[in-house]
């Protein structure tokens, strides 16, 4: 058992255990943190597959950005843990049964019999000067340019959708509009001269 194999099994174990924790933790903050761990371990697995770029992106984007945001959201929400727990217990037997059947099916299919070295020969390791990022980039902008562009459209849709669903002007909120501030003119906008009758005169009458 080489060192690589040792690393693989360690991090694979961490991935599986932490994924299990994500589902079973009652405290959502803990669950999110386990998810972070799960991603990190997965990143290492990818590294072992010589997919350095994807590993780094996973850490940077998912762990660094997405999960942090997720954590904020979870912390801000007030989740009724007791209710969740009750549901969880109630459906646990059924859930477990289904999960076991699924597991059995997956083991039956996704095993060495179908995915062993006989079916898939081990690829030759890449040379030292091989740039994962460069070849990925080349592929993305040539062979996969069409899916790539579609993915960009999907992101655009996500932006439009998010804005439509959340952005709304509430008439009762007070907010500052910098553009209006800048546009204020010196004369008529800032000072308004109000003409008033002299009060004393009124009294004199």
């Amino acid at each position: 058992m080489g060192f690589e194999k040792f690393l693989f099994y360690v991090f694979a174990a961490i991935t599986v255990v932490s994924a299990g924790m994500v589902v079973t933790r009652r405290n959502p903050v803990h669950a999110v943190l386990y998810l972070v761990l799960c991603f990190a371990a997965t990143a290492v697995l990818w590294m072992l597959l010589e997919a350095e770029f994807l590993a780094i992106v996973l850490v940077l984007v998912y762990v660094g950005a997405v999960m942090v945001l997720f954590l904020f959201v979870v912390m801000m929400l007030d989740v009724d843990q007791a209710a969740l727990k009750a549901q969880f217990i109630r459906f646990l037997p059924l859930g477990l049964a289904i999960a076991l059947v699924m597991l059995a099916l997956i083991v039956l299919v996704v095993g060495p019999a179908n995915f062993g070295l006989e079916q898939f020969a081990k690829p030759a390791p890449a040379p030292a000067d091989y740039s994962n990022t460069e070849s990925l980039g080349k592929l993305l902008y040539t062979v996969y340019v069409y899916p790539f562009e579609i993915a960009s459209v999907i992101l655009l849709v996500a932006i439009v959708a998010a804005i439509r669903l959340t952005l709304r002007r509430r008439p009762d909120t007070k907010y500052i509009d910098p553009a209006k501030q800048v546009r204020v003119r010196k004369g008529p906008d800032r000072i308004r001269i109000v003409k008033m009758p002299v009060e004393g005169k009124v009294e004199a009458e």
Partner: protein
Amino acid sequence: MDFNAAELIPVLPEIFILVLASTVLLVDLYLRDDQRGLNHGITLVGLLIGIGLILALGGGERQIVLSGSFVRDPMSDTLNAIILLVAFLAFAYSKDYLRDRNMLVGEYYVLGLFAVLGMMIMVSANTFLVAYLGLELLALSLYPMVAFDRDSKAGAEAAMKYFVLGALGSGMLLYGISMVYGGTGALDFPTVAASVADQGLDNKVLVFGLAFVVIGVAFKFGAVPFHMWVPDTYQGAPTSVVLFLSSAPKIAAFALAIRLMVDGLGGLHADWQGMLIILAVLSMGLGNLVAIAQTNLKRMLAYSTISHVGFIFLGLIAGTAQGYAAAMFYAIVYALMAAGAFGVLLLLSRKGFEAENLDDLKGLNERDSWYAAMMALLMFSMAGVPPTVGFMAKLLVLEAVVRVDLVWLAVVAVAFSIIGAFYYLRVIKLMYFDKPTTLEPITVGAGARVALSVNGLAMLVLGLFPAGLLGICQAAFA
């Protein structure tokens, strides 16, 4: 590798719709609130131009471009054009409804057009990856549309359910695709098909992946038991969105099924035939039975959709060119029927009033006999009464399954469609034999009126002269 700009020519309709969506997005920025109608105009004109582009560029040999990602063939020409046509109808019916509810904003059209783009991408996908991305583009555009009325709790709930279940469904599809990739080492349909033909049915991995792929497709169609989102979403979403959601995406789902299961995994027909038989029987049974118990018209139509999906599956189950053509015919006809039926609901709705219960149709004949007649045609067509086109569509899929010696399946289908006839006829009874609850006249713009008339009469005309459309469908699988 070299890039050849001529390769973009077959993709022009897709590019055009993308540009159209972006144009609406930008133009909307500069419009005052009372000018939002311009979005509507641009969208409708754009869709017509899109149809023109498809017709101009279509025809001729199958073309595969963009490194095998994109295919243009007779099927994609037809389905894309019809998707644009149905979307055109959906937008045309919706204008007044949207304006009355302060939803006549650019985003509606932008999201709708992106959804259309997603469908077109699915239709002309030549790899699993592109098909999946098209599906996601469609789904992601539809989720916010379901929740488009931000003040509606039902809409938000519906969108939430749709989103979560949709994520589950597309997760399963993706998992299935990964299995197929594992089993064949390829993502593009021709290579996968060759590899499947090579390996035969021995490879369990492929069957395993196939099950997930079938589920992804079945979810998109809304087949039992992956239909749970359909009734809740139909009921909660604004009617204009339901109209959109229930019509064109069914055509796209049909295309997805053909691309994934026939173009890609056609070699596994024996397996997916069995899966689809289960789903089809369940869909026809549950859809027709539960629809009877509904009082909400939108929910009723949702269950009717589910039962029609069962019929579309019949054509696929046959696994013959004739069966696929029949299923395609059915899907197209269904999209037109759904567009018309929800169109009537839209036109009946007014500011502050949603026509969505069966009782709202009472005595429609006395209020507006023309709409009642159109609705009656649509209902007859859905029930499959000759000489409407719905009959022809049912006949064709039944013939297809009978030809492959699945007579029992045809008998089951006929039995369920008889049960289904009950609730369609009930609508007609309500319209013609009951007293109206209100005598308020129906005021509708001329455009929508014309569109609905064309839509309703098409049921009759296509039923009497089905050869044209049928010929197109058969040509797609010749």
